[in-house]
């Protein structure tokens, strides 16, 4: 039970961080920035 909750939560959290990083990188490359 512990590892199931730990691994699923970790994946969701790091996916959110990675998505945020991708969005930030794309918007930084836009000419308006």
């Amino acid at each position: 039970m512990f590892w199931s909750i730990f691994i699923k939560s970790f994946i969701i959290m790091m996916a959110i961080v990675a998505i945020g990083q991708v969005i930030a990188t794309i918007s930084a490359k836009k000419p308006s920035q």
Partner: protein
Amino acid sequence: MRYGILAAVIIYEIVVIFGIGWWVSRNHKKDEAGAFALAGRDLPLGVVAATMALTVLGTAHILGVFEMTWFMGASAIWFSIAHVVLLVVVCLSTGLWVRRLEVTTVPELLERMYGKGTRLLVSCVMAAVIWGILTLETQGIGIVLSSMTGWSIKNGAIVGGILGIFYVVLAGMKEVGWINLVNAVIMYIGLVLATVFLAFKLPGGNFDTVANFYTDAGEGFMLNIVGSTEILITFALANIVSVTFCQGISQMLLQTCMSAKSEQTIKKALWIAAPVNGLFGVFAVVIGLTAKTLPEFSALGPKVAATTMMVELLPGWVCVVLLASFLAAILSTFAMTSLTPATIFAVDIYKNLFNPNATEQQVTTVTRIAIIILSVIAMAIAAFLPPILSAINWLFAWLVPVFWLVVFGLFWKRSAKTAIATLLASWIINSIWSFTSLPAAINMADIPNGYVTLVVTFVVAVIMNLGGGGKPAYFKSEEYLLTKKVG
């Protein structure tokens, strides 16, 4: 009374706080600009990451998550996931902007975009909101100490408050940062040890019996972190909106970004701060789920079952490390929630309004005095145990319009009239929503204040920006481009 646990934890806190405080203040450059409040804008990666993670990890992550898990099961983890979203937003946008513009406070940024009136309004409200959280954390210290040692909540709040004052008052931001780094390590040692020893105490030496309890009772959903669609909309999304748009612009979190060595430091800190903050919730959820399955603790109810279980089942020395771990989480938030409103008072009120020629030393002295006064009042109020947690929803919603005014002002349009109208409209509606029967009368009592202020902010600010005049976005303005060239 468990005097051994109490004495060991207090001695640990005194050694860490005074040891690091003395070491940091020895190398403290007192006359350097922003030395006390912003650590000379020179905090390294590890310190920034630990401070960001621990600043938004406090009482609600411990006692709040234990209680939420009791009712909704593992999906209470969305409270922690909401804080990960917050850290992403801060480390990749608002935190970078305040570091780039080299402001000392968020209200100072608002003055650059919207003028002195907006700065003053936001200073008063932001300091008050953060101070409300300080009162909550002071209560939290008292409750955690009381439930794990048998000491009175009043004594716990007073001694915890004094430790919290020394956590910050000796050398300011730099002291808080380095103590946080040590405490982040202790926090995880405590959590891992407590979880391992708890598992050993269960049949089979693992958590299988806990899982079986819920499955057999037909409550398998309690083990599912995604939960139902209803939980995702009413709990997960509501938390993400409220936490991100309030804390995402709060001085409480942004003062660490202002103190970072560079923008790059903040971006890198995200990859450490997010898991350090977020995974705390996993341990809290597992402890909360376990407490409900054991009849002797389940009978105590959601408020004290988990903490009582830990004290009863774990060896004394593990309890000491776990209590130190919980105090690390709460005291770090206490320190930042006392330092940041004190900084707003010293910079935005004292220096800005009363003494524009104040030296760095004078500002530091005023900040120190404000830290002590704000903390002492919080301790006095917390000892009477008012229902502060129920006010958090209302309290957080006050900063939602500030977040969007900063975004609009930096990237779209700036108008003082729009800013003040948006702030006043959102704040009035927020108070009406909490203190009148209007939400019930229009059948919308379940809608949280964060959603309501978000809608009002967008309606007022967008209509006024589209309809009226105003200066161009700050990042496209001549004053910004000029400072960039000079820099």
